């Protein structure tokens, strides 16, 4: 019974593939629209998913986004193989960015990525190991916490 109410999707992302950047968040949005999820929540998910996706495109070699959903919560996990984050506290600050000039010229790397995810998520855990990669877990509730 419980499993039939779950939906899960895995999306692969290639680092440096700016042409496809944004496709994952778009697909996730389409799914949520089908399900009739509240537009305000869809928007939060879309922003968080987009920023996560962009972090892989900009910094990592490759990564995987998994969307898991049940009638109560949306969970997005991301795992990438990349340089990792040296100073997580710093990276969580608005405006801090290690993007190259070229990325900035393209309008990316404003240092809003991780803070933006945090702002839009109900829960956001981040783990990173320098030289290996970064993984995080984004939870957004469909029903306010405490209600069943």
């Amino acid at each position, binding site marked *: 019974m419980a499993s*039939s*109410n*779950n*939906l899960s999707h895995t999306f692969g992302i290639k680092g440096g593939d700016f042409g496809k950047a*944004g496709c994952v*968040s*778009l697909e996730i*949005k389409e*799914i949520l*629209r*089908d*399900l*009739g*999820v509240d*537009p*305000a929540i*869809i*928007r939060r998910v*879309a*922003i968080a998913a*987009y*920023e996560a996706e962009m972090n892989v495109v900009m910094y990592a070699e490759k990564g995987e986004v998994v969307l898991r*959903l*049940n*009638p109560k919560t949306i969970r997005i996990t991301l795992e990438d193989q990349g340089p990792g984050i040296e100073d997580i506290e710093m990276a969580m600050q608005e405006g801090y960015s290690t993007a190259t000039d070229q990325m900035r010229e393209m*309008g990316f790397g404003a240092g809003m990525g991780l803070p*933006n995810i945090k702002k839009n998520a109900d829960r956001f855990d981040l783990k990173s190991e320098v030289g290996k990669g970064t993984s995080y877990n984004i939870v957004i509730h*469909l029903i306010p916490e405490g209600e069943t």
Partner: protein
Amino acid sequence: MSQYYHSIRIDTDKCDGRMKCLRSCPTQAIRIRDNKAVILEEKCIDCGECITACPNGAIVALTDPFGELSKFKHTVAIPSPALYAQFGRSILPDRILAGLKKLGFDDAYDLALTCGDTSLAIEHFLEEYKGPRPLISNACPSVVRLIQVKYPQLVDHIIPITLPKRLTAREIKEKKSKELGLKLEEIGTFYITPCPVKMIAIRQPSAGEECYLDGAISIADIYGPLLSALENVDPGSYRKGLESICILGIGWAVAGGMHRTLKLENVLDVYGISEIINTFDDIERGKLRNIDLVVAYSCPQGCVGGSLTVENRYISYNKILRLLETLERENIEACGDKREIDDKYRQKQFHMQHKYEPRPIQALDGDLGEAIKKRKKKEKIYESLPKIDCGVCGAPTCMAFAEDVVRGEAQPSDCIFNVPKKFRELTGELSRLLDGFGSIGGEQQREPGNRKKRKKS
């Protein structure tokens, strides 16, 4: 289902299901059922792409016939500035307005003037605005509908400034009723429209505002008579005609025209529904936050590219552009009094009374758990389809077809690629049946089994 008014109808006598509309519809709002096109009202944004695409002229815009004028004691034509672009360069707005009066209107009003006032109001609004950016212009009703249907979370980005034609119609009615001692409803205000979507803005305004317009007449319908009427209008002086044009408003007819006269740096002009969809996707992802305003027109080149216009859209686009350049060079403004407009703005006369409301497409199911199940089913069906979007089933894409099946609006067997499968199943069953009758079917029975094996290896 007729919850929403639409300005587009399909003439089933003329439609022979050739699918051009199916492929042209940017919101996948058309299906072919029993060889005839059908519009899904919930998804249609009245952009008119299908009208242009139909080779049979089977899709028609529901504008008003000219005869409607006789219902009123006093009639006023309010042409879209796109009408000015339909005639040669030497024919200026003043002459076109005079031509409209020759056609039988008691008066004709230059809407570009109000567009100019509205441009200033938008400038004011943007100066004071503190909410999420970018704002999105409400000038094109198809764009507003697109947001309501596909981007409900962006409705708060739509500029809540009343459309010029509505403002004009209200002022005309109030002024003329005083002047002529007539009731408001005895004065007929007619918009001369470049596209069908403006018709809905009259019959069912997006935000539930009262419209004050009594009808819309298509540019295509009025073009011929107007052309002959223009021959009987004294051409007058070109210079004088030029001096009567409001530079702030005339540009509303073309993409980039409104932006050109607004004193804003970060404005994007977007046109064509698929481009607009790309841009709105970006906004939804949180990009473009440094842009102040997006002015989007569903038709290529702006209103001059509307499906009810006559002149080639590039020619008319150029005419407006040249006109703007001339006015800039000659320093001609001829717009409303700035202080008066400021006063009106402060009195909130430009502000809409209602908010735009979202009207998202129905979910697969009202219950989220059920919707998740149906979504999974939809994905499963999609996986079994050829994914070539051939359209033979009557849906524009395999994904749309999968959704139609889940919603119970189509059968899996409507997919032509499912037919051979079904045929194999049936022949398999038949040979099994025959097998039951004795040895005759023995050889044939092995056939389907063998085939399965071959497929696997």
